[in-house]
């Protein structure tokens, strides 16, 4: 690596320095836009005791779900975890600690973490189990709870294209939590479908500036579809 060039040449190098008991923030919604090869590398490394921050936890054999059978995850902070039998088993038995967090609050916690804002007030979750133990305050006659920001030792991100400086462009709804995750990692690792030379991406069209990105790698992706819904041709 030299100057602003963020490109690394192997997944091993991409996840170097990840050790037991770290916090990892992952982009993705369901199986859409997940850093699937970076997750596979964490699985290969066998790192344990991880706290994962991600909207979902994959399915049994793909995405973050692959980290469950070897008990690599100690705790997960997520909004929706319904698609995964092993997850539900570990949660019900108490082997896995789960902090259910409203989706918008989760996105904002990551954004705030990356933006240097330690906490924020939101009406989301007032009067629900989410509010338990949190500071509650009124603004303009309405109640809000204080939610704390999240940062990670690592963030793992999937983008569509990047230049070597780590400027990122996402594709369609594979963007989702990825820009927030990129902001909130102490070490942000991004895998993309294509890396181009600096200057080839239109600066006006960049979604995440390279300042948030530490390591970049080009990969190939399975892009598994969770719910394949179609209409007949010709309609």
């Amino acid at each position, binding site marked *: 690596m030299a100057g602003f060039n963020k490109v690394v040449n192997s997944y091993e190098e991409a996840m170097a320095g990840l050790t037991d008991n770290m916090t990892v923030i992952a982009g993705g*919604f369901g199986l*859409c836009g997940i850093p699937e090869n970076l997750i596979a590398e964490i699985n290969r490394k066998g790192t344990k005791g991880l706290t994962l921050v991600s909207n979902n936890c994959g399915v049994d054999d793909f995405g973050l779900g692959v980290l469950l059978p070897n008990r690599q995850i100690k705790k997960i902070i997520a909004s929706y975890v319904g698609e995964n039998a092993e997850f539900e088993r570990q949660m019900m038995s108490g082997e896995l600690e789960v902090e259910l967090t409203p989706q*918008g609050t989760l996105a904002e916690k990551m954004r705030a973490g990356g933006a240097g804002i330690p906490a924020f007030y939101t009406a*989301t979750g007032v009067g629900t*189990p989410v509010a338990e133990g949190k500071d509650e305050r009124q603004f303009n006659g309405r109640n809000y709870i204080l939610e704390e920001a999240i940062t990670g030792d690592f963030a793992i991100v999937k983008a569509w294209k990047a230049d070597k400086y780590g400027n990122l462009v996402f594709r369609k709804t594979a963007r989702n*939590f990825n820009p927030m995750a990129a902001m909130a990692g102490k070490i942000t690792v991004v895998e993309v479908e294509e890396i181009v030379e600096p200057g080839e991406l239109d600066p006006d069209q960049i979604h995440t500036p390279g300042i948030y990105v530490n390591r970049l790698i080009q990969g190939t992706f399975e892009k598994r579809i969770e719910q394949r819904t*179609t209409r007949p041709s010709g309609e």
Partner: protein
Amino acid sequence: MALSREQIAQRVAQELQDGYYVNLGIGIPTLVANFVPEDIEVMLQSENGLLGMGQFPTEEEIDADLINAGKQTVTMATGASIFDSAESFAMIRGGHVDLTVLGAFEVDVNGNIASYMIPGKLIKGMGGAMDLVAGADNIIVTMTHASKHGKSKLLTNCSLPLTGKGCIKKVLTDLAFIEIKNGQFHLLERAPGVTVEEIIKLTQGELVVPDVVPEMQF
């Protein structure tokens, strides 16, 4: 007769107005998209980061990078926009969505809603539901009026953990269209062929019934 899932969606669709930005939850609410009146335009918001959700793709159009909040493959309508999750919930939490339709397990006379968790049983998480009910002013809850065993879902007090407090004003069930105000349910309409007595019997919370309760029109 009790409304089918499609009929519930069809009645909700009558509440849509031209130029509305609408968020439809998973299940019956998703079906509302099939009954948008032809003479109006609405834009569907999907909280994973899409405004202007289109119909399902053909086999040839399927794109793994384009899904809705239910993780189903979708397409984009003309004039659609894509954004990240923080932006998506900024528009939801900031009150920019005109109508939100979502399902529930229970609703009570104080506008409380329980929709995400049955302790000891179903643990999936709230997804975006807590943000949606806290951020929207105009919400319609769709659900069956009672469980299969005849247990009312319209209660004095929700028994399950809440998704939101004091935020629900309208409920459309398979039997009735109900407004919540002043700590009471108010019966606005009944499903065709359903009697007021049947609705009273299956509503546990206090229900105000006017002298004349019109049947829903389709």
